[in-house]
């Protein structure tokens, strides 16, 4: 097990380096010039100075190495320093990845935007799981019943209809026509008393419901088919024939075994939370990470987009490892060779 973890991490490092190189190269091809939007009255020499201060006069490989050093060494150290207050030697020599459009640290920007994304999109994911598991279990247990047929039909619709349509539809119905919920998410809202808490809840209802519905639709299908696979297994019959209560058979034996692949899928889907956030945040105008990325792309803020995209990639790789480990921990039949 330990050997397996070490080997996976050792494989992950070159993978991430290749990905970081790919992302850096693609973005470096961008024809955009950070000084292109400056007024024409600024003389050419000054523009050259600005480009130099951004490090753009250096060749490609130097910029790439500098960025990787900043990302893998300087930024983590700066993070530790900020959290613990311990100063490492040479902290004044280290540079952080700066955004071109705001001139502040990209990592700081990401930490500012993270809570909004995690609150809305993360909560929708958790809610989706909580809905999907009982629906999937019941659907499979009563296969071909009305509940099952309705459930599979709704879930097929749920994951076919894109969230950018269900979201807009929800806005049209619930905030334009019925005026129950606000259509724009107010991120400056600070929850300090009951009234502001209610306001926060109200603005979260629509985005969370829309996303949770989508997530639940996908997951309940997997849950159902995994339950169906296990309900007919020999061990389920054995458990019944030794006189166990039906409840104990289904919830204690079948459900536990069916959850194994579902837990893996849940882990694999976590990085997708952030990808999904890109679209959801545009619908409800939430200024989370997805919004940060879109703004960065529109403003041609290359360091911001590079770093954010690479963080998404790191999350995918990490959660892939987690998913494999979870599989082994939950299922003793799996042996890591």
């Amino acid at each position: 097990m330990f050997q397996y973890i070490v080997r996976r991490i050792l494989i992950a490092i070159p993978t991430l380096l290749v990905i970081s190189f790919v992302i850096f190269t693609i973005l470096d091809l961008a024809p955009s010039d950070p000084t292109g939007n400056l007024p024409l009255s600024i003389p050419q020499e000054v523009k050259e100075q600005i480009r130099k201060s951004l490090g753009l006069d250096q060749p490609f490989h130097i910029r790439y190495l500098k960025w990787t050093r900043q990302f893998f060494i300087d930024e983590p150290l700066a993070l530790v320093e900020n959290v613990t207050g311990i100063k490492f030697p040479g902290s004044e020599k280290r540079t952080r990845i700066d955004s071109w459009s705001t001139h502040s640290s990209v990592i700081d920007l990401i930490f500012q935007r993270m809570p909004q994304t995690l609150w809305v999109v993360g909560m929708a994911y958790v809610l989706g799981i909580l809905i999907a598991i009982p629906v999937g279990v019941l659907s499979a247990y009563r296969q071909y019943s009305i509940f099952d047929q309705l459930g599979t039909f709704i879930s097929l619709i749920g994951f076919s209809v894109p969230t950018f349509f269900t979201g807009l539809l929800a806005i049209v119905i619930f905030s334009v026509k019925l005026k129950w919920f606000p259509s724009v998410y107010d991120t400056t809202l600070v929850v300090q008393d009951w009234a502001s808490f209610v306001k926060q809840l109200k603005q979260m209802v629509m985005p969370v419901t829309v996303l949770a519905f989508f997530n639940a639709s996908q997951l309940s299908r997997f849950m159902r088919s995994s339950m169906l696979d296990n309900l007919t297994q020999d061990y389920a019959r054995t458990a019944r024939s030794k006189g166990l209560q039906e409840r104990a058979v289904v919830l204690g034996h079948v459900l536990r075994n069916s959850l194994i692949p579902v837990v893996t899928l849940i882990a694999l889907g976590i990085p997708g939370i952030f990808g999904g956030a890109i679209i959801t945040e545009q619908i409800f105008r939430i200024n989370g990470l997805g919004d940060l990325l879109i703004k960065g792309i529109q403003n041609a803020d290359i360091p911001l987009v590079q770093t954010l995209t690479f963080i998404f990639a790191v999350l995918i790789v990490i959660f892939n490892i987690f998913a494999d480990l979870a599989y082994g921990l939950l299922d003793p039949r799996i042996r890591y060779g």
Partner: protein
Amino acid sequence: MSAVSPNARAKQKPKSESLWLDTWKQFVKHKGAVVGMIVFFIIVFSTIFGPMIYRIDPQYNDLRARNQGPTLAHPLGTDNLGRDLLAANLAGGRISLAVGLVAMLISIGLGTVIGVSSGYFPRLDGILMRLTDMFLALPLLPLLLVAIMLFRDSLRSLVGPETGIFLLIVVLIGVTSWMNTARIVRGEVLAVKEREFVTAASALGSQNNRIMWQHILPNVLSPILVSAALGMASAIITESALSFLGLGFPSDVPTWGRLLFDGKDFLSLTPLRVVWPGIAISLVVISVNFMGDGLRDALDPRLRTKG
């Protein structure tokens, strides 16, 4: 099932059926798939032939009839520039469906070639599967957005606005969505190539290429077909998502996704504007997914219901 031995069954049914006729018979038993197919073909035909019957130019600005709801002159209403929404949705559907079809063909083609080569040649397997893993670890939506931003203007000036963005989006979606097909096809090829008929073919002196495409490919066709159906649905969704984020097709070549994007700022004024293209996308994706479900059931003998 086991009561009838294969020999007895062959005697009962003397007329042998081709694989496709048999698949079709199973397919039409799946109610959802049949309804999906009908809905899908209605939408396809109306986008192909609709603009020939309903002859209003989707770009014509009827400035006296701006932001209208459904009227006799404009059955689906008009947008903020007085353009007819029915004409826009029909024209947009053509592009959306074409993007879905072509992107799916690219992705299936790539996935099949990579999957078959990787399953058939052990020497290529390692490197091709590492490539697949790397593509799966890339955050695709951000990279798609970035790539569109990078190449949009240069391609636009190179081959014209419409073809340029079409080629760009189709190729980008195709190149970033082949991985699942490749993995499924590889797994099937690994199983099929150990079968006796492949050994027989190679003992008879067939070349690798011939074995691959004549003997192995027909046997792995069913998972490819199923992932083609699902791939088309997801290509249409990806294109709409890109257009919805404002980084897909431009306003002068609107697709369903772009119509949603343009309509989302007029939600309180003309809410129906986002409903039409949204329903169109959803209906296409739902019907394609149902067809995919039906196809999978029809092609997989283990999933067949008896009788």
